[in-house]
């Protein structure tokens, strides 16, 4: 017979369980990638392939923070992931404000203005990829700043505000502001712009930063700063560059998002390329941690393992997306894996505890540089499984573009150096494919951990990379710097880059310009690959088979949907995970170059997009935040 207190305990447990079940215990979307594993996977099942066609606008709001660059304020590039946590939607804007919204109406709960400078100090536009969220493991009722939202700025400040009230957290940094630039002590030619929200794990923030690419050979070295989430006190620093070379080169920073394996206390970081980006005569030393994926001990910053993805990077092939963490069942064994997408179109599948490839990866001979002072790596690592998102050879001359330009495209292709993957920049100009725009951009892919399906969007962009002897560069830029010219001060060459297009702006290469691919991670096999999105020029939509260059990322839902914006045509889409067929399309104000958020609030599932546009895709900007749901 049960004692009365045991019965009471059982009843309380039942009531608690019932309340828990009634509350739904739905997944939060609490990081840039949804969670710390960067899976971009939602367990929600209300919206399905069968009913997604009836998806409708649940609410939308405009932050007011946008600029097309025509006035005094630089153009805005808004690529924020809306966070859903603490029963609130949190947004960071490119004017460096934070909005807290009601999840079911979009009504503003509070907003916070950092009053940050609106100058493009490092990037060509005002950028942000949103906010980060932390909350104490033990909440003390009545105490402020037990839950904090963080927003970084172009001028290297990190703001911390109370997630419930929007008031600055005085205990963080100095009156709620951490000056990240205090650690900018080597080659401090520009501020360490905190445009990617920090990664939050336990009580630590991991802060990366963005700089000014292609301008300087000697640039700030790419430290990561681990700071206390409550106070901003520095815990540890990681630098991908050895101290003895830090002054002669620079960057190799982490400007993209990171991921965390909480079970093994590992922080995974995508490290970018060293400066200058297209000539390496000043950095011939072995730099194994740059253009690499690196696993760090989250408590100490010590390197656990690293794998370089591009040796002696001459293409600005920054490792640019958070590694996706997922367990793969292969040959009957469960392997803790990491998927690293890349600008070069390779998908590196590694054991996340050791860094060893799960599928074969070879070192292959690659074209060599003919530029004096340069010494390209003789080989590069090339994983052929899964199949790269981009082909080994460039797509070839577009007949239509060639005819429209009276043969310009084919003449130019013959005049340029074209030697396939990893053709180094040259004095006569090299046709580079994939170019620095990708391949896969900073959004990376999404994974369904239950079926082991990986989905990733990829662009197909061909560019001309040309080195110019210093005197030639100076002559071309003495009356101002035309578009496409970058100084790379500190080395014997300046740099010119252009998209390979004809006089009408038509790409000189064959479509598709963007694809969406799905892979079976058990075997690495390509399940399907479809042109994705539409190109729009002067309002006219080009054929579906052309696809679109994309920036942004997909989300997968447990119900079998892919939800994605990313394309040039200002549309957001839902696709069938099994087939890649587009099931629903929504029109938004600009390209939704962001990671969508999927959340459930009060029993209703929402899909939310920050619609900001990106001048890389087209000069169309917006401040629209839009959420879709099934009709009530």
């Amino acid at each position, binding site marked *: 017979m049960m004692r009365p207190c045991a019965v009471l305990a059982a009843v309380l447990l039942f009531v608690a369980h019932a309340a828990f079940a009634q509350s739904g215990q739905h997944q939060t979307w609490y990081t840039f990638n949804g969670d710390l594993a960067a899976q971009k996977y939602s367990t929600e099942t209300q919206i399905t392939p069968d009913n997604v066609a009836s998806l409708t606008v649940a609410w939308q709001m405009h932050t007011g923070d946008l600029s097309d660059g025509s006035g005094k304020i630089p153009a805005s590039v808004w690529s924020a992931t809306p966070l859903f946590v603490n029963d609130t939607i949190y947004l960071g804007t490119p004017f460096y404000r934070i909005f807290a919204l009601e999840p079911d109406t979009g009504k503003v709960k509070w907003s916070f203005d950092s009053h940050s400078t609106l100058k493009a100090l490092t990037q060509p536009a005002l950028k942000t990829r949103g906010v980060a969220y932390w909350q104490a493991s033990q909440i003390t009722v009545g105490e402020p700043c037990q839950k904090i939202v963080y927003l970084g700025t172009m001028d290297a400040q990190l703001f911390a505000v109370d997630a419930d009230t929007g008031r600055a957290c005085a205990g963080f940094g100095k009156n709620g502001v951490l000056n990240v630039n205090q650690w900018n002590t080597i080659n401090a030619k520009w501020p360490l712009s905190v445009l990617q929200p920090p990664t939050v794990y336990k009580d630590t923030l991991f802060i990366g930063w963005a700089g000014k690419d292609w301008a300087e050979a000697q640039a700030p070295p790419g430290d990561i700063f681990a700071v206390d989430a409550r106070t901003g006190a520095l815990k540890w620093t990681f630098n991908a560059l050895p101290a003895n070379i830090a002054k002669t080169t620079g960057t190799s920073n982490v400007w993209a998002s990171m991921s965390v394996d909480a079970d093994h206390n590992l922080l995974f970081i995508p490290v970018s390329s060293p400066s200058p980006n297209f000539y390496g005569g000043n950095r011939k030393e072995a730099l194994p941690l740059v253009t690499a994926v690196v696993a760090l001990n989250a408590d100490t910053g010590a390197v656990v393992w690293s794998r370089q993805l591009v040796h002696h990077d001459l293409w600005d092939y920054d490792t640019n997306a958070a590694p996706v963490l997922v367990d793969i069942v292969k040959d009957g064994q469960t392997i803790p894996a990491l998927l690293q997408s890349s600008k070069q179109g390779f998908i590196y599948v590694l054991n996340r505890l050791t860094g060893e490839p799960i599928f074969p990866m070879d070192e292959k001979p690659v074209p060599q540089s003919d530029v004096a002072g340069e010494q390209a790596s003789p080989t590069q690592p090339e994983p052929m499984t899964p199949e790269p998102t981009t082909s080994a050879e460039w797509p070839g001359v577009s007949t239509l573009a060639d005819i429209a330009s009276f043969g310009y495209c084919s003449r130019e292709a013959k005049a340029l150096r074209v030697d396939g993957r990893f053709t180094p920049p040259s004095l006569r100009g090299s046709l580079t494919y994939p170019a620095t725009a990708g391949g896969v951009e900073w959004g990376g892919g999404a994974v369904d951990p239950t079926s082991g399906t990986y989905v990733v969007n990829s662009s197909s962009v061909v560019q001309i990379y040309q080195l110019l002897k210093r005197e030639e560069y100076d002559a071309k830029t003495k009356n101002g710097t035309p578009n496409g010219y970058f100084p790379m001060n500190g080395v014997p060459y300046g740099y010119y880059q252009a998209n390979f297009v004809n006089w009408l702006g038509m790409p000189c290469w064959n479509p598709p310009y963007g694809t969406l691919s799905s892979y079976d991670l058990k075997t690495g096999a390509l399940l399907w690959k479809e042109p994705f999105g539409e190109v*729009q020029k*002067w*309002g*006219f*939509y080009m054929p579906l088979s052309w696809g679109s260059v994309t920036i942004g990322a997909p989300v997968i839902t447990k119900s079998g949907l892919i939800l994605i914006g990313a394309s040039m*045509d*200002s*549309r957001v889409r839902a696709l069938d995970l099994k087939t890649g067929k587009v099931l629903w399309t929504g*029109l938004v*104000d600009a390209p939704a170059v962001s990671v969508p958020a999927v959340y459930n609030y009060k029993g209703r599932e929402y899909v939310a997009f920050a619609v900001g546009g990106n001048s890389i895709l087209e000069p169309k900007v917006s401040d629209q935040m839009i959420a879709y749901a099934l009709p009530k």
Partner: protein
Amino acid sequence: MHADTGVLNRVGAWGLVVASLAGLAVSVFDYVTPGNGIAGSFGALLVVVTSVLLVAASLTVAFALVGRRWVRVMIDMLLCLGVLGTGFAAYMLEADVLLALMVVAFVGWLAHLCAVPRAVHRPAKLQPGVA
């Protein structure tokens, strides 16, 4: 039969007018309405201009304002090109309503063209001395 052909001709011409006018209204609406994906674009402006020209040309046909045959033929041909061109542009703009109206306009044009009243045939005069 001649009377039926004339009616069909007029119906076709006026169908062309109505479809062109509606097309103009839709194209202007598309150009000025934010959030439709084509507002303010060069393509949307282009179909506004071609729709204006279609309206003008179709009115000249409907009111039979042009007497010279070669001018009528030229306007008919230009109307055909205008309707097909605007329709193709509407297809590329994914402006479905405008595309549908251009289909209607094309049917009107066909009706107008195929039902042109034949010239009245006068009885042949018999030549003297011919049996």
